[in-house]
């Protein structure tokens, strides 16, 4: 059982809300993968399966006007922050009804109304940009916070160093969430990273750093809650290293030769989403009927989104030239 029992656990409503987010991510991911493997759709796909609890754990602390920045493996963050299912599917499928009119694609999902402001395809690059959102909140004197998500691989790129340092110097309201799934593309962390815990690096910048079991929803909820509260109070940034596992490799179609079979098997056997479901039931936080109803609702939501996206038109060809500048510019 991965979920911690603590007397100061979140209330029932929050626990169920976290499960709902996790299930939404899992169900959406399963549909994408089944449609990809059956050849119904074709797209570049980075499965977030296995990392659901991290996004759910921070997202329930956020307001719609808080900002989230994420990366190409970002579907879980998109759904957790509330990007609508229909527009999300349509964008993945390159349709005019997508969040970005089909012009961004899976690696660039943007939905400012939900606060999902940047999805970047460049490892580590979201970190300096998140500081800009934090700076905007600080200059405006609001208590908005920014959560920026990235992987363990990103902690080895220069943008991480520059961004973490600037956030600490300026005490920016930014929460750095390193979703450590133990692999940067096809290379295990042990072969790319000189420290055992990425959170150790926070000390080098003068900010708090914590490692948490990212597959434990309650532990993740606590770590995120503390960091978000600190940022809202103007007390500066935090680095959260959330340890997790990536079930389906770097990219859909990845042969995963570099991931030991036993390791992957064990991680999948400990799948955090059904584990959390069982914990909720065992501890009386939810009933079977309640969770089944949520799950059915999500399946219906995904069915609806798939139909919506599949039946949506591609963007018109003149969209090629718009949105380069405010006005079409030579």
């Amino acid at each position, binding site marked *: 059982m991965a979920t911690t029992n603590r007397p100061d656990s979140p209330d029932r409503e929050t626990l169920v809300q976290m499960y709902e987010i996790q299930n939404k991510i899992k169900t959406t991911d399963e549909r994408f993968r089944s449609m990809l493997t059956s050849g119904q759709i074709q797209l570049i796909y980075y499965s977030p399966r296995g990392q659901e609890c991290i996004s759910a754990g921070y997202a329930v602390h956020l307001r719609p006007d808080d900002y989230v920045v994420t990366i190409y493996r970002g579907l879980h963050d998109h759904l957790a922050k509330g990007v609508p299912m229909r527009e999300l599917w349509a964008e993945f499928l390159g349709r005019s009804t997508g969040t970005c009119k089909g012009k*961004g694609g899976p690696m660039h999902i943007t939905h400012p109304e939900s606060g999902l402001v940047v999805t970047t395809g460049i490892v580590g690059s979201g970190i300096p940009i998140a500081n800009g959102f934090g700076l905007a909140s600080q200059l405006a004197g609001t208590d908005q916070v920014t959560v920026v998500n990235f992987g363990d691989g990103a902690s080895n790129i220069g943008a991480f160093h520059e961004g973490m340092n600037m956030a600490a110097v300026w005490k920016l309201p930014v929460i750095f969430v390193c979703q450590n799934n133990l692999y940067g593309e096809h290379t295990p962390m042990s072969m790319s990273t000189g420290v055992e815990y990425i959170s150790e690096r926070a000390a080098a910048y003068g900010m708090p750093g914590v490692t948490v079991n990212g597959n434990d929803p309650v532990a993740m909820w606590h770590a995120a809650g503390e960091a978000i509260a600190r940022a809202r109070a103007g007390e500066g940034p935090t680095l959260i290293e959330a340890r997790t596992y990536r079930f389906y490799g770097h990219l859909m179609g990845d042969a995963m030769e570099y991931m030991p079979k036993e390791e992957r098997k064990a991680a999948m056997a400990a799948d955090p989403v059904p584990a959390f479901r069982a914990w909720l039931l065992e501890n009386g936080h939810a009933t079977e009927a309640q969770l089944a109803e949520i799950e059915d609702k999500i399946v219906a939501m995904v069915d609806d989104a798939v139909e919506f996206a599949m039946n949506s038109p591609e963007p018109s060809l003149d969209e090629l030239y718009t949105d380069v500048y405010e006005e079409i510019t030579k």
Partner: protein
Amino acid sequence: MTTTEPRIIPMGVALNEAMDIAMGLDEKVFLLGEDIAEPSGGVYKITKGLSTKYGTHRVRKTPISEAAIIGAAVGAAIAGYKPVAEIMIMDFIAVCLDQITNHAAKIRYMSGGQTTVPMVIRTSAGAGRQFGAQHSEMLEAWAVHTPGLKVVVPSNPADAKGLLISSIFDPDPVLFVEPMLMYWDPQYACDVPVGDNRIPLGKANIVREGKDVTVISYGKQVHDAVKAADILAAEGVSVEVIDLRTLVPLDEATVLASVSKTKRAVVVHEAVTRCGFGAELSSRIHEELFGTLSAPVARVGGQNTPVPYAKNLETAFVPQVADIVAAIKSLNK
């Protein structure tokens, strides 16, 4: 009344005035960059006094972290601010190019127009002070080759001021290239109107009218083009000089109208000639006017080498007035 008297100031002061005016008009405008606050006011003193006037929260001294500087500007711009980021020297663009080309330039497009990045990157550029290969380059072609960026290169203080205010209030990211040698040199000072006198992006300036040859340039080389025109005027050749002011947007109409008239063109810039902006301009003129030209378009640019240190080599790298004169004469053979 003194309002009609000329006010001769250098580009460094004109740029400072532009930022002062923009910050006074809109509290969303803020500056960030290395050393830009007091007491230094920037290594070139371009932001002198502004942190005292507007506070260090709006004139922000940063770590030496160019990717963090541009990244912070990108995020703040998306969130509704109008950041003006200073990259001390243009060669340093190389260490933050990801933020410029992958993010500032593409975010409007990738988001389908939902998020925009109204920011300015000011940077000093150009050879002539023996700063060597990593502190002297003109890299505007990199930015011109990146859809989503606008590119401005002023040639005089009045234009620098008017173009910078326009750039700060422009809805798109602008790379604003300031010819380093022109900041404080009195020979480049000129009359600069007081107040908010904006110059729109995308409007070239016909600096000198002529009928035999068109010389198209921008930045410091505009002055060399005018000197070449003076020399040739004495020999009976009438040279029209166009200052592009902005490379993106490009005022192609003014260029093509002029070359349609003169039927000869020389493009001049300090940047390395190979794949420089002159190559694009020459190509566009040929595509539009090939049948009517009296001679192929000539290019005058920097040598295809890094910028050397030794004074004689540095001078040999940079295109000179004599090179422009020779290029114009070659068209008249």
